[in-house]
């Protein structure tokens, strides 16, 4: 079945072509891996990522600033009103009156009355003085917390806590406990500071307070996500956002606050329509290394030379020798035709195998030389699988070329069919690339996906290999099937045909 001298003869005859193609392919692979792995080949993508990241961060800052500003401003307003009301009430009731009222309440409780009964009783008792149940509630509530102390500080502190609690209750419905707790502390702090404030208006104070607070807190939070922003950057953004928000509130005082905030804090990104946003997201998520090394190299650029090698060598192995007549010398020795074709087939497959084995070694060395980098997205096992895939693809293509070579007696015909089909497959896979689903929608031409259905190179699913799915396995099986069928038919045809030697 196998003839060593013929194998040796084929090796010698095609060695130069083989070594040139192997060297060039390995060299190209190393260059592609190193260049794409090292350089900022993706700087446009990087700057896009940066722009959208800024955009997203600032949108978040805006939203926080406006929300907190609004809460703070409202709380301060509530506090101001409550303080004015309370002061007015105490002025009316007077301090001695307050003491009488509270003592009466205490007595009623001691007598065994419930809180509610006691309050009703008091309201009835002093209704002549214009003291309604509401006023009683305000006084008694204060009394239960602060006792007889009616100093300004105490009152302020009391009201401050009431306002903060109100904020807390409001927020715990809308958000989670953590946010509500945080808001309460912020409010308490804000009001106590506001208490000492003399110069700024309520709005200005709230704006400044929130700006400074965000400037202090957000840089640390963002740093945890690996984003670097300075306090002044955040402050500038927050201040502008609050200014805009206040301006809008002046123009439309009745605006729905939540909607207004969402509106103003909408990022540039989110202003785009859905499909454009998706396209931009795809570009951000694009794995340049995987695309160039895994697909453009292994399925196109890197296959070009091996395909040219296969076309010429497959033709030289059979049809070329029949056409020139040199096959007569082999066949005038007691070498069977089956032995001849089987040996030539072994040569073709072995030479391609060694070629991709060397390419694997080159790939692994190049990856190892690059070390761990964020740009390098192909692991060593994936590199081996990609080479295996390229080899299996070449098995199928070489099968077709070999069949053409075994089928025809003329080099011209063998080259036309074998070479023509192989080149057609290569060109269509390149055209099909522009319509492939892994190409970002922004630069994809969907109708060109048609080309992916007419080339067998599509069955080399490099994307599946790099994504770690197993879809590539059954496609490999088809490629292997094609090559086995082609080689078997070649043997049968060559055994039976007339040779013009």
């Amino acid at each position, binding site marked *: 079945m196998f*003839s*060593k*001298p*013929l194998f*040796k*003869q084929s090796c*010698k*005859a*095609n060695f130069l072509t083989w070594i040139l193609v192997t060297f060039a392919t390995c060299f190209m692979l190393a260059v592609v891996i190193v260049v794409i792995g090292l350089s900022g080949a993706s700087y446009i993508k990087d700057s896009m990522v940066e722009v959208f990241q800024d955009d997203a961060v600032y949108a978040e800052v805006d939203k926080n600033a406006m929300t907190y500003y609004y809460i703070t401003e409202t709380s301060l307003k509530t506090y101001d009103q409550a303080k004015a009301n309370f002061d007015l009430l105490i002025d009316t009731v007077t301090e001695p009156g307050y003491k009488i009222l509270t003592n009466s309440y205490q007595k009623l409780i001691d007598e065994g009355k419930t809180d509610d009964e006691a309050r009703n009783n008091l309201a009835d008792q002093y209704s002549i003085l214009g003291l309604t149940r509401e006023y009683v509630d305000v006084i008694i509530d204060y009394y239960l917390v602060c006792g007889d102390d009616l100093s300004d500080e105490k009152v302020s502190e009391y009201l401050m806590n009431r306002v903060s609690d109100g904020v807390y209750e409001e927020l715990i419905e809308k958000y989670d406990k953590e946010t509500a707790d945080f808001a309460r502390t912020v409010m308490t702090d804000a009001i106590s500071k506001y208490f000492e404030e003399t110069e700024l208006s309520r709005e200005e104070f709230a704006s400044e307070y929130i700006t400074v607070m965000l400037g202090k807190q957000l840089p640390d939070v963002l740093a945890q996500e690996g984003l670097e922003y300075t306090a002044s950057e955040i402050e500038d953004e927050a201040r502008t956002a609050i200014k805009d928000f206040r301006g809008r509130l002046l123009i439309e005082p009745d605006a729905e606050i939540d909607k207004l905030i969402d509106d103003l804090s909408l990022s540039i990104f989110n202003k785009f329509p859905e499909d454009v946003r998706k396209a931009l997201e795809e570009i951000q998520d694009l794995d340049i290394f995987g695309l160039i090394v895994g697909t453009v190299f292994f399925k196109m650029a890197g296959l070009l030379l091996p395909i040219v090698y296969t076309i010429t060598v497959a033709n*030289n192995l059979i049809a070329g*020798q029949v056409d*020139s*007549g*040199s096959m*007569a*010398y*082999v*066949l*005038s*020795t*007691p*070498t*069977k*035709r089956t032995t001849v074709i089987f040996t030539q087939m072994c040569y073709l497959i072995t030479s391609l195998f060694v070629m991709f084995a060397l390419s694997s070694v080159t790939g692994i060395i190049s990856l190892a030389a690059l070390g761990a980098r964020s740009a390098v997205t192909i692991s060593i096992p994936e590199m081996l699988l990609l080479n295996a895939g390229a080899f299996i693809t070449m098995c199928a293509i070489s099968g077709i070329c070999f069949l053409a070579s075994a089928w025809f007696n003329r080099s011209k015909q063998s080259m036309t069919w074998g070479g023509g089909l192989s080149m057609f497959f290569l060109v269509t896979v390149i055209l099909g690339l522009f319509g492939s689903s892994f190409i970002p929608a922004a630069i994809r031409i969907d109708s060109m996906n048609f080309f992916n259905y007419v080339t067998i190179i599509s069955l080399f699913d490099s994307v599946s290999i790099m994504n770690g799915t197993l879809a590539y396995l059954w496609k490999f099986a088809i490629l292997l099937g094609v090559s086995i069928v082609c080689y078997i038919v070649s043997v049968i045809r060559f055994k*039976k045909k*007339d*040779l*013009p*030697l």
Partner: protein
Amino acid sequence: MKNIIEFSGVTKDYRHGRGIFDISLSVSEGEMFGFVGTNGAGKTTTIRHIMGFLKQDSGTVTVKGMDAWNQASSIKKFIGYVPGEIAFPDLASGTEFLKSQAELSGLKDMSRANRLIERLQLDPSANLRRMSKGMKQKTALVAALMADPEIIILDEPTTGLDPLMRVAFMDIVREEHMRGKTVFMSSHMFEELQTTCDKVALIDNGKINEIVDMNIITQRPDVQFKIEFNKKSDYRAFLNSGYTIIRDQPQYSQVTITLPKKETQKLFFSLSDYDVKFISEIPYTLEKYFKEKLINERIKEQKYVQ
């Protein structure tokens, strides 16, 4: 004598009148068989059947009793082949080619190859692609003969060689024949076959026209002479002396006569009485034989048509 190569009723129809039709011939052991015909007559097609390169549409081809198609590889153990078109495999030098051929045929002893190389004054280390036609032919002959095969098949081996080379080449082939090898050789030159072959077949338009034993040609009972006389009177006298005249050219005083071989002596004796300018024997050639044969046939065909 055992038949080494045998064709019986072999037809390979390439259509449009091309191919070979109902070829039957046999070559016995130790015989040198010539195969002559014009270009495209079917010589190479016939040889390709012996080599098992082509499969006949009908009939059988056997070599040493084995089927030439089904047992092609076994037959090759006995065959040395020099193809008509010399194109070598893609190897660097003649030496490399010969070595590769030896390996393919399982030959280990290269002494015979070396003797042949010396004999042919061949430089086998030369680049295969830059060899002249003669060198290529010599290299191919060494490759065919180095395993000392029983059967030697040559497809127009001397075409394109200069006359000296042709002689040297044919000398070696003839030597092999003397050593008892069976030789099957095609050519489009009658003289070449006439001097070397035991039997010659004429193929025309894919059909065997005639197979001639060379003895018939070389050992004919009759001889022909052309005689020219100095004097017209002598010429006229000779015309009436009773010899069979086959051509008469009175303007030159020339006659061509035919007579049984054994009467040659008598002719020379009687010519001593005449003033003879020159006398020459017209040799009977294979070419002449086939020409006569073809002319007769054409005449017969015409009669048949009429």
